[in-house]
């Protein structure tokens, strides 16, 4: 399985996170640090799992926490978009 739809959604989410890191705007320093040190590596790990021949249910189980992790970083419209892409990627697995 290639998980093309999931990969596309999570790639977009990753791109958005990198964009937020470049221009954090009014996002607090702690949220920016959490995005850089925790959310982005978790997203990278999620994308790496897509190439490891895991069944879709295993992928869904390992990555189900990602949307909530992004929401917990802070209230921000761009982060809401990231969360939406992550949810779409998870939905494409089922």
């Amino acid at each position, binding site marked *: 399985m290639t998980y093309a739809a999931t990969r596309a959604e999570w790639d977009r989410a990753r791109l958005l996170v990198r964009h937020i890191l470049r221009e954090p705007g009014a996002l607090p*320093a*702690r949220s920016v*640090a*959490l995005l850089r*040190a*925790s*959310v982005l*590596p*978790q997203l990278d*790990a999620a994308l*790496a*799992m897509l190439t*490891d021949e*895991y069944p879709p249910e295993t992928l869904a*189980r*390992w990555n189900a*926490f990602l949307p*909530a*992790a992004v*929401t*917990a*970083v802070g209230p921000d419209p761009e982060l809401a978009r990231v969360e939406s892409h992550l949810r779409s990627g998870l939905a494409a697995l089922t």
Partner: protein
Amino acid sequence: MREYEQEHLRERAKPTVARSVLDDVSQWWNGSEQVAERAPKPEPAYTKQDFDQSLALVQMPVALSHLELFGKPPDVAVAGSAAARLGPAASALQVMANSKKDPKNQAAMLTPVPDIQAAQTTLQVIAAGEKAQSMWHDAFQYAMAIVDNAVGLPVADPDANLKSADDVEQRDHDLLVTSVKPTLQRLQDKTAGAPYVDFDPKAYTEGQEALSAIGAVNIAQLKPALAHINRGMAAIKAFAMSMEEQWNAAIASLEAAQQKLSAQAATYVTTTTPLPQEEAR
């Protein structure tokens, strides 16, 4: 009245108790500027934000890893996936701790980090298999690079009026050159070869010697070197175990981390949740 008694009355000290309104308020315009000083509000050890972020960014990946390991046979792929999730979880806790001003609150926030890192290192060793040696080679190399940087720091002049924050004491510089660097070099040389062939991973002493040597030096910049040496030693320790033992050690570390995370969260829940009888009122 005698002369000295009259003099004593004239030189009487300022009354400590106000006798009139004027005595009381004259200080307001004759005295120095009075600024209201409020006692600083203590920083809360654990806030709702900490609770939410810890739950989503730390407790979830740790619980997920535990769920995938517990009661299942050792699996290299699962170990790799879990290790990849635990590093960012520990980093999230470090970021949260760094945002605290009170060192006590910082330390309390960091208590689960060693357990998460221990589980991560053990799982990385399982996932790396025979390539695990590069983990401690790299760790000790990073430590050596940090020590080399510290050797290059300017030595403080005891007679100088202005001192740079980066300056190191002559004693610490000498210890770095004569003790820390050679000890770390010995550790690198000893562990460079194949385990059980060139060195016994259960009986080598150079790791502890290097830790002691760094501990004797008072240079803040060396803290990451300690962390790298500890990580390398943890990798060697994990490598010396059987796969079953490694798996169980990772599970035990994850459980210890979960207990500490729950204890942190409990401090927030107990201080914010009203007791049932209070709620009924």
